[in-house]
């Protein structure tokens, strides 16, 4: 019985290339994602749903900005910082972007070392990723404080269209929450890696399931997604 099931899986992983292969994988009552574990598939599906949430935020921002008859505040000036005695446009946002990209790089390497079962390097790189993430959230808190001090509110601001504040707080607030959850997620998994949970296949206290190094990749998927969303926010909200 078990043998038959296994043989079926082997047979079904060899499919014709291209669209015919996709149709063969999806048709009839069977497992659609052949060589993808349930954990990874579910993370991807969650990220897909999260994509729709952020799409709705960016769309409502687009609609507000396109339909208002009041000029939209210039983000280049709003987010400028005076360093020394030079006013540099958008510099804080640029630094935040670089911090988040750096964290994506360390995360990608953590996944790599995870599959090589290098506990120390994986945990260290995950903690570095978490540190970059915490730095990002800190800079965002600074940015929020600065804007609130300058009089930006969800219902108005000194420079133009009132919807600027509500769009800004909604979009960056939701993204910042994602980063914060990601930092907690990273620290939790880094602790398990460091302790060697995935080498001895220790069972989780909550799920009672064995853990594998694949969870590092799944955590990475979430983290890269947070970076991905920032790419779109940076382009549409700050640069447009």
């Amino acid at each position: 019985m078990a043998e038959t099931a296994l043989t079926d899986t082997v047979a079904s992983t060899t499919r014709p290339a291209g669209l015919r292969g996709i149709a063969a994988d999806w048709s009839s009552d069977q497992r659609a994602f052949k060589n993808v574990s349930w954990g990874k598939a579910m993370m991807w599906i969650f990220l897909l749903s999260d994509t729709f949430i952020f799409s709705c935020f960016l769309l409502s921002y687009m609609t507000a900005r396109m339909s208002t008859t009041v000029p939209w505040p210039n983000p280049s000036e709003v987010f400028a910082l005076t360093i020394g005695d030079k006013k540099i446009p958008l510099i804080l946002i640029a630094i935040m972007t670089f911090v988040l990209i750096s964290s994506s790089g360390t995360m990608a390497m953590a996944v790599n070392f995870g599959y090589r079962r290098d506990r120390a390097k994986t945990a260290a790189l995950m903690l570095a990723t978490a540190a970059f993430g915490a730095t990002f959230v800190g800079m965002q808190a600074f940015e929020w404080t600065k804007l609130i001090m300058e009089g930006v509110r969800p219902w108005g601001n000194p420079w133009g269209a009132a919807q600027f504040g509500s769009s800004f707080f909604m979009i960056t607030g939701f993204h910042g929450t994602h980063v914060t959850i990601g930092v907690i997620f990273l620290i939790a998994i880094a602790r398990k890696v460091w302790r060697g949970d995935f080498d001895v296949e220790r069972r989780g206290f909550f799920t009672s399931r064995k853990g594998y190094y694949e969870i590092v990749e799944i955590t990475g998927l979430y983290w890269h997604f947070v970076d991905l969303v920032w790419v779109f926010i940076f382009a549409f909200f700050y640069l447009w």
Partner: protein
Amino acid sequence: MTNAAVQVEGQQPSLHIHLHEALASGVSHAKGQQHPITLYLVVWGWLFVLSTCSYLVDYFGLHGYLRWSLILLFMVLKAGLIVAVFMHMAWERLALAYAILLPPVLVLVFVAIMVFESDYTHLIRVISFGSPT
């Protein structure tokens, strides 16, 4: 089916073992996504370059269609690199890639709808309140 399996086992034990190994790695992902570190470093470097480019679009104050097309170009390139390499979508089976990547493309329909909607709202506001921009 069982006969075939037995035959395979009898004739080529090495093949059978090989299949089992492939299975084990497929189910538990013991090997997982293994790619050279240099690939990640190259992609990382490109992400920095592209981010710098998109920042420079603002720094030099480019305007109009040049600005918007450059922003979109750098955005799409960055997003593509992150999804394809960092999230390993380039190496996943097409069935998963299409299931995840196609639905967000449909958001573009929603974008088109909202563009028409906001044009209409803007028109009504201009007509009713008379302060065009």
